[in-house]
């Protein structure tokens, strides 16, 4: 059974998904225009995983995620300006320009960091879960990762440790079918990542990652279980990345017609249709929402462009905590 969120929270989820989508489309433009350097990994198509999860979290919960993490940051409440500033390496960016696209971090919203090493964020989230357990905060730690990351050692170490220590932790896999340019079935011998929970004696749940409310429903239930001291869960969200892996990848390796099939189940469309069916939204309101999101993104980009770069002395700041 999928839980229906109250109207205000549906509006918020829809707004965040639209904003994220438009922000990432803009990020790609800025990358091609050389205003963003290095690399970007877009999560276009994954938005429901982020907003559905964020809707099930409460203040004090902690999150770690991956280089493909713009949607998580925005869903958790990072401002568009802080994100765009960071993208452009500006002093006013979320990490003062030291992180970039792959390291969106905002401790004030519980986002302990996006990680560029596949799988490394899982054990780090276990530490946050340990703090919650030892200090009895009632909080949980959530870690996002791709299906490809379920083949790296850190994944297995983290699930095992979380289970033996009964940590209040959620492992949320965004199975988007590809790890870089390899379809997951070529690298992974199981049909579903969720079955890997079995080896670690934890529930493994599969959910439609295109449906924000479906994601919310399973994350809320697993979160309640973790908060009650019953231990971690593995949640596999079936999703799809519309764009290539990174940078200018056009994803020539995917099956013909595959993208079109997934586009029919777009996360924004699904929530929008449900709200229209429940008489909570009409096309005019949706267009207004989209327009407001567009303006917010443009504002953030223009603002970020005006911001100064960090002074070169910043290079030597924060290597260590002084004091």
């Amino acid at each position: 059974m999928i839980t229906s969120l109250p109207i205000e929270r549906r509006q918020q989820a829809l707004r965040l998904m639209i904003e994220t989508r438009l922000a990432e489309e803009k990020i790609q433009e800025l990358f091609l225009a050389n205003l963003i350097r290095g690399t970007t990994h877009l999560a276009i198509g994954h938005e429901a995983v982020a907003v559905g999860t964020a809707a099930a979290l409460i203040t004090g919960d902690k999150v770690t995620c991956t280089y493909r993490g713009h949607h998580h940051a925005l869903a958790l409440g990072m401002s568009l300006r802080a994100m765009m500033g960071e993208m452009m390496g500006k002093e006013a960016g979320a990490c003062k320009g030291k992180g970039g696209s792959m390291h969106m971090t905002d401790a004030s919203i519980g986002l302990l960091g996006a990680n560029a090493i596949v799988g490394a964020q899982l054990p780090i989230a276990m530490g946050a879960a340990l703090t919650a357990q030892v200090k009895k905060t009632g909080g949980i730690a959530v870690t996002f990762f791709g299906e490809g990351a379920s083949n790296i050692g850190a994944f297995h170490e983290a699930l095992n440790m979380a289970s033996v220590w009964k940590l209040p932790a959620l492992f949320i896999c965004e199975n988007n079918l590809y790890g870089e340019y390899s379809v997951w079935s070529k690298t992974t011998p199981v049909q579903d990542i969720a079955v890997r929970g079995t080896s670690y004696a934890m529930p493994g749940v599969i959910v439609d990652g295109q449906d924000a409310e479906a994601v919310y429903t399973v994350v809320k239930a697993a979160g309640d279980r973790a908060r009650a001291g019953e231990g971690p869960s593995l949640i596999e969200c079936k999703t799809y990345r519309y764009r290539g892996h990174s940078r200018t990848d056009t994803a020539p390796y995917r099956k013909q017609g595959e993208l079109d099939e997934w586009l029919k189940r777009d996360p924004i469309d699904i929530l929008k249709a449900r709200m229209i069916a429940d008489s909570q939204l009409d096309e005019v309101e949706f267009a207004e929402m989209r327009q407001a999101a567009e303006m917010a993104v443009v504002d953030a980009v223009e603002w970020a462009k005006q911001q100064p770069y960090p002074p070169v002395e910043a290079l030597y700041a924060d290597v260590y905590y002084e004091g």
Partner: protein
Amino acid sequence: MPEMTYREAVAKALTDELASDPDVIFFGEDVAEAGGVFKVTPGLYERFGPDRVRDTPISEQAIIGTALGAAITGLRPVAELMFADFVPVALDQLANQVAKYRYMSGGQFVVPLTVRAAQGGGNGFGTQHSQCAESWLMNFPGIKVVSPSTPVDMYGLLRGAIRENNPVFVLEHKGLYNMKGEVPDDTAPMKLGESKVMREGTDVTVVASQLMMHRSLEAAEQLAREDISCEVIDVRSFVPLDKATILHSLAKTNHLVVVEEAPHQAGWGGDIASLAADEGVYWLAAPVKRVNMGAALIAYSPPLEDEVLPNVGRIMRAVKSVLTDA
């Protein structure tokens, strides 16, 4: 003044920090109920309970990653890696995560994390259980590295490390666990970043650490009988490095020998030599001599292990050679 072993000094430092700060927790493989493979930590589990003193699975990446996550969310963890040879098993978490977490977030976190590991050769543990880890870890700004050589320093530096609001690696030399020394009751947590002159001298400065430092003291003692006066400096803190103490000594002796329990290539002795070249070259009366393992690995067989680790004779020869090179 109470005398205790280096091993007991570790236990006492951990006990005192666990007792004084409820945010301190301690975990590692077999450290809790079994009291550690080197019997360094017996009794902590019984005294502080299963929440704060924990046995972990054999999962070095998870141990370090979990410690990092705990450190940035309000705990002050001490993680044990058992053997320093396991550092490479957890190297991603150490090099890419622990060392960079504060930096790449733009200073959003403090990382009050201590990692302990037993290191060093001389005990027949073979190639994969005898290495020293300083030189590996020094290449990651963001981590501090200390290597205590005596019980009192073990006690004070470990407490100092635990109180430090940065990641600190504390390396314990296996060959010193049974060494006894005085640890005054009022020994306070020590500041990191300070070397110690262990023996004053005028002819040659010998920079060394842990087992090699003790062998250097022995060499100095024997050389004194030949009227050669060595000043022996215990590095204690590799990061940050106490340049002043070394340069000050060099200005006095004009000769420098560095004794490392490590391979020559990219070993920390190169940093000391480059310090002398950069900032002390006008004091040098002879080339700097490094005594170390060369390009060899540690082997199991007694004569082979004896040969690869610098010994008193090699240290004495090096000291004499810098004096005659002049």
